[in-house]
């Protein structure tokens, strides 16, 4: 207990002053005058608006990447006490005093600064000398493109940081595999690998390439582990399980965590609500939730509803009808039924109200108790303001002649009977009940007579249809498509018997109280899906470039221009570093192929451990460059120089590795390698000689076994 009286308490610390110095220089280079310029620089205008949304906790949707990167930037704003009140509309606009520029830019700058000592660590862990490691760190330190990108509210530096962290921790892990598997540090680095990978993916989707690379290397190592027959089966299984959990399960969990926090933070409705489903919108404060609060949940016969199309293309809209009829003859000479138009209308309107009617009864009010409508029930839909019934028939639709016209039936007393029965098809009844519910249920209306499905064609009608969107009955009812799916957004139980009363009722807002809650997974999957599918119009940009321009540094981006002094910020690489790094990659590839071919002929130029080190360095650095670069050739989006920076970082790491290798093994033919030759070369030669003699023996054996085709 009083042990410290007998023995002194000793703290031994190994401090690598190289690392400390590199960190200090890195911090200096990235943090020096960080708040200058006090103006919006380039993509800050883009990320800044999301920071403001976080500060105000307003929901938004950004298709460019998962939320972790945005949240990191927002964290900077939170620490600096930013209230989100700034209009991010123009590059070069001066920041107002309430914007904490320094703290907003702090986290990316820190990430950029810490990349410097990490480069050192990685090269060291790869088994190369301190000299090479310091070289790698210095190259990262002085690369001006990395400095520029780190000093602004941008995501690349954080992405690079987590990419490097993933590689570094994997290296630490695989090095500790030799001495202490399942030790605390082994577990720490393994799990950190998974977490860092998830963070990289969480910042930008391109992080997934580094993740896949690390997974690939881990898989190869695991495969060797399986082949290691000194380990027992159980132990191999434990190893594999630990890797699977840390590198597959944990990243997924961490990724989900980002979305969890994201959705937790953003709880208010905002400008992008319309893209999401009604159920999702209802889960946000304000907006739709305010409208739908307290609606009855189950749709019953007599319910008054508005029906929103689930597709939302070209605009979100509601099923609509009005007094006007289809013109007897269209411009192109085809005829119509001249019945009341049914359209889809992108604005809230009293004409969007429909009443669910039981075909067997005449009343348009809800019984007490309400009779809920279920999957497969036959219903009629009466338009609230005109009480005409939704109808479709074998008449070509105005703009999509392959499909059927949808109308509200007017009895002209010609030989055209009403065909107004619809079968309710609840698409998501598997995951929910088969009762038609407000907001939650996604339903299709299948026409009983023709089995056509009520569908939004999306084409805007000409002037006679007030440019509202065309709705058709389509028999191509295969598969699921959003344009055939509708959901009830506003809903109330109809109470008025008389038409006049009913019109008043329709004009009044819905009331009552229930709250809708979607599960996290449902919200996550919807949000993730929308983020992946939201279409950003691929616009050409003045500074956009192609991947080929990047290697030769044939492009730049002007980030900012001082309005008076013409001081400028440009993203431009250091041409010496870029060229020599590219050269190093080329040299590496050629040398690697040379060694590989010669090893195949059993000529070992490198000792085994040296070869393994060389191959691992190539797999991680040259491979890291390749996986972060080559996929851009296949991407169709607008590309910029900064997309190359993650690849460049890996390429820079390769440069000192190649230099050291060349100087050790190729330039000087020094003693170490000769000494090695004399040790290992002799048995090698012996082996080859014996090998060469063997064919005569070998030939004798298969000669008798020459395969013949059965004739």
């Amino acid at each position, binding site marked *: 207990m009083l042990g410290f009286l007998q023995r002194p308490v000793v703290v031994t610390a190994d401090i690598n002053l190289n690392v400390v110095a590199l960190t200090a220089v890195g911090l200096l280079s990235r943090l020096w005058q960080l708040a200058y310029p006090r103006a919006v620089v380039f993509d800050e205008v883009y990320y800044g608006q999301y920071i403001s949304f976080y500060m105000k906790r307003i929901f938004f949707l950004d298709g460019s990447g998962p939320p972790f990167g945005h949240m990191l930037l927002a964290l900077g704003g939170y620490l600096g006490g930013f209230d989100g009140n700034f209009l991010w509309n123009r590059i070069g606009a001066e920041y107002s005093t309430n914007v904490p520029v320094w703290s907003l830019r702090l986290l990316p700058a820190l990430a950029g600064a810490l990349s410097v000592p990490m480069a050192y660590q990685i090269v060291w862990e790869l088994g190369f000398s301190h000299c090479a490691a310091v070289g790698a760190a210095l190259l990262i330190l002085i690369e001006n493109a990395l400095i520029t990108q780190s000093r602004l509210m941008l995501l690349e530096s954080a992405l690079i940081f987590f990419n490097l962290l993933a590689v570094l921790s994997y290296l630490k892990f695989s090095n500790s595999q030799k001495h202490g598997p399942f030790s605390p540090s082994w577990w720490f680095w393994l799990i950190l690998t998974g977490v860092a990978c998830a963070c990289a993916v969480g910042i930008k989707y391109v992080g997934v390439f580094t993740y896949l690379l690390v997974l690939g290397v881990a898989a190869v190592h695991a495969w060797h582990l399986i*082949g290691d027959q000194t380990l027992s*089966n159980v132990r191999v299984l434990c190893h594999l399980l630990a890797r699977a959990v840390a590198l597959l399960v944990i990243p997924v969990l961490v990724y989900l965590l980002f979305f969890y926090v994201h959705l937790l933070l953003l709880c208010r409705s905002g400008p992008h609500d319309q893209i999401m489903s009604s159920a999702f919108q209802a889960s946000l404060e304000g907006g739709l939730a305010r409208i739908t609060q307290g609606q009855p949940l189950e749709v019953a016969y007599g319910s008054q509803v508005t029906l929103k199309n689930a597709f939302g293309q070209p605009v979100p809209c509601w099923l609509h009808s009005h007094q006007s009829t289809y013109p007897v003859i269209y411009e192109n000479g085809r005829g119509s039924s001249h019945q009341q138009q049914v359209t889809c209308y992108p604005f809230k309107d009293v004409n969007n109200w429909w009443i669910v009617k039981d075909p067997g009864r005449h009343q348009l009010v809800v019984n007490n108790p309400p009779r809920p409508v279920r999957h497969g029930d036959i219903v009629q839909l009466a338009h609230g303001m005109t009480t005409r019934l939704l109808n479709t028939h074998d008449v070509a639709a105005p703009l999509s002649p392959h499909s059927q016209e949808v109308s509200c039936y007017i009895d002209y007393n010609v030989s055209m009977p009403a065909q107004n029965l619809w079968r309710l098809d609840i698409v998501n009844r598997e995951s929910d009940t088969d009762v038609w519910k407000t907001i939650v249920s996604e339903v299709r209306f299948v026409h009983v007579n023709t089995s056509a499905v009520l569908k939004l064609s999306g084409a805007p009608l000409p002037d006679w249809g007030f440019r509202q969107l065309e709705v058709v009955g389509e028999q191509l009812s295969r598969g699921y498509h959003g344009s055939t799916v509708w959901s009830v957004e506003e809903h109330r139980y109809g109470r008025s018997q008389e038409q006049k009363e009913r019109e008043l009722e329709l004009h009044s807002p819905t009331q009552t109280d229930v709250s809708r809650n979607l599960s996290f997974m449902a919200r996550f999957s919807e949000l993730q899906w929308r983020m992946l599918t939201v279409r950003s119009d691929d616009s050409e940009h003045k500074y956009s470039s192609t991947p080929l321009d990047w290697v030769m540094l044939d492009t730049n981006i002007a980030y900012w221009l001082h309005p008076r002094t013409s001081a400028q910020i440009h993203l431009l690489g250091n041409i010496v570093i870029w060229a020599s790094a590219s050269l190093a990659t080329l040299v590496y590839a050629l040398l690697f192929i040379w060694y590989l071919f010669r090893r195949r002929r059993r000529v070992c130029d490198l000792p085994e451990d040296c070869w393994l080190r060389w191959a691992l360095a190539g797999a991680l650095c040259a491979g890291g460059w390749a996986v972060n670069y080559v996929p851009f050739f296949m991407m169709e989006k607008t590309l910029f120089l900064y997309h190359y920076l993650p690849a460049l970082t890996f390429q820079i790491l390769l440069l000192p590795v190649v230099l050291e290798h060349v100087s050790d093994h190729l330039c000087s033919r020094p003693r170490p390698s000769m000494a090695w030759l004399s040790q290992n070369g002799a048995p090698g030669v012996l082996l080859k000689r014996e090998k*060469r003699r063997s064919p005569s023996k*070998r030939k004798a054996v298969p000669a008798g*076994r020459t395969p013949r085709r059965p004739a």
Partner: protein
Amino acid sequence: MPPAVGGGLAGSELRPRRGRCGSQAARAVGPDVATEATTRSPKRPAPSSRRFEAPGRWALLALVTLMSFATRFHRLDQPPHICWDETHFGKMGSYYINRTFFFDVHPPLGKMLIGLAGHLTGYDGTFLFQKPGDEYEHHSYLGMRGFCAFLGALLIPFAYLTVLELSQSLPAALLTAALLTFDTGCLTLSQYILLDPILMFFIMAAMLSMVKYNSYANRPFSAPWWLWLSLTGVNLAGALGVKFVGLFIILQVGWNTVSDLWHLFGDLSLSMITHMSGIRQIMPHMPSTLHWLGLQVTVGKHLTARILCLIVLPLALYTATYAVHFMVLNKSGPGDGFFSSAFQARLSGNNLHNASIPEHLAYGSVITVKSARMAVGYLHSHGHLYPEGIGARQQQVTTYLHKDYNNLWIIKKHNTNSDPLDPSLPVEFVKHGDVIRLEHKETSRNLHSHYHEAPLTRKHYQVTGYGINGTGDSNDFWRIEVVNRKFGNRIKVLRSRIRLIHLVTGCVLGSSGKVLPKWGWEQLEVTCTPYLKETLNSIWNVEDHINPKLPNISLDVLQPSFPEIMLEAHMVMIRGNNGLKPKDNEFTSKPWHWPINYQGLRFSGINDTDFRVYLLGNPVVWWLNLLSIALYLLSGSIFAVALQRGARLPAEVEGLSQVLLQGGGQLLLGWMMHYFPFFLMGRILYFHHYFPAMLFSSMLTGLLWDTLLRLCAWSLASFSLAGHVHTLGILSLLLGIAYRPPRRLKALTPPWDVTKGRADGIVTAVLPSFPQISKYS
């Protein structure tokens, strides 16, 4: 036949050197190990295969072939009207017979063969092939269908032989043959004038010859080795010559060849120089380079043989098909406009053929302006306005691929409206750097641009037709510049690459290559781009040129060389392929639909009275295939892990595992190669794209079940009935596959289809009209 032959066969296929590679190979020190490896070559006891005598084998093959032909040729003449894409490929066959030039996104070989088959069987190319459902009447169509069915029928013996070679097991081969014979999808796809039977024929033939030449690996450079190797090359050329999908089998053969060469390279016994040891004694210090050089002779011979047969030969054949294509099609036809002016000059009947036009542009000339980017077309305008909300409501300007009166423009001076063709005025040539006005001949509106955003490319400016009878405003002025020329030079027709720079905004006239929506008749967008980067998009050349006041010169100097034609044809095809994008709101087939047989393709039949044809796989076959792939991955990884753990397997099991890992591995690779790339494709996809992959997956199924049942039989060896497990299993599988879908297709309607309630079955319910007919499938 002595039993040793069976074992020898197995040994030849299972090439033991494949088994030891990487670290294992490094352990193989000394000659004793090498010989051990050869003797340890798995002796696969193939009890059932030994039972069949050679005549029996031939009889089986004949039976399989007969079955296949009988099913494929049964009622081939039905329906006697155009089915689905017959409308395209039959039409293209007719083009070959009529020698009119056309454009298609696929390489020419398949259509050429169809044309040839039609020609040989008396079809005269007069049928119009207008739309699906048209009756053939008196036209002879059976020859073309028969040709496709013949190739389609050969698929089954090919698959049979491939599996036999890979597994050395007759039951496996039979199972495969049965799977394919009884698959309704393969049957349907093989019966009509389509490219797919031809494509699949070449793919399977290439696979078979590759497997065959692999089996001669221990007798390299023998006559059959050469035969199969060169046949592989021929079939690769055929596959690529029919559709670009043939690239996948080329990749597979390429992968096989590379790994083969890699093993040869690592085989230290392959050396031609036997005096190496002597040299080494003389010069002990420089062993490695000589060693390196010396050993390469045999490997080099292998390499050369493969380059010759698998690269040079296919390329030569592929090029030859194009040579024939361009030689046969020498008349002007519907495909002219897709190609450059120089190319069109070759086609008789085209207005550029043997044409003579004025050489230099002058004011008053009537011209057509063509984009330098391939397959973009001519600057075009027509009497329709941009719809409201899309820029200014003025006349549309687009590019259009076809020749049309609306492509004609008149060059006028910017400041006068006097008619330059007035004979009293002298001819005035247009010079580099002049400011001009381009008046659309048909509508008399000027080419115009202004600060409104372009319809699709939002950062560019809109280009419109503006003004009445040639009177517009200063936004109609363009400066004409020749790329890389000095100011003041005249502008040559066809030769000069010109740019049109808008005087007021300083932007450059260009085509974005994007397809306008319906309101623009799906022509391509024309914009004025403010980014002055020099790209092909903004470079144009003058093609037609009419000016009565100028003397004409001949155009023969423009004849392009054959390599230029090849390159251009490929560029146009690739662009055409990329242009086949699904439209919004259209139900499209997704790759994940295919293996589960989610939804078929309607070939024929609009109403209840028609003969109805629906392409859908036999669910038993397809779902069995799907199950087999999962099972294969499971059993394959179990074996791989067991081998990697160094487990000592009994000889028989080891032999089976080799079949599974190597033979099955090749088939799985084939399946993946022919399936997964579709996930990355942006173009519109159809169900029938899956069929090459389905062939591989059926072969895998045959091989897998045979192997698994053998393993079962082996593990139950202690029971008396063990021997029958395998036989019974194979028999029950064969019977199960022969399941014939009930007559009413309704039963095949997937349960998740909403039409299931319909009384009259899937066919009428699914497609009331013709949107499914692919433009180019």
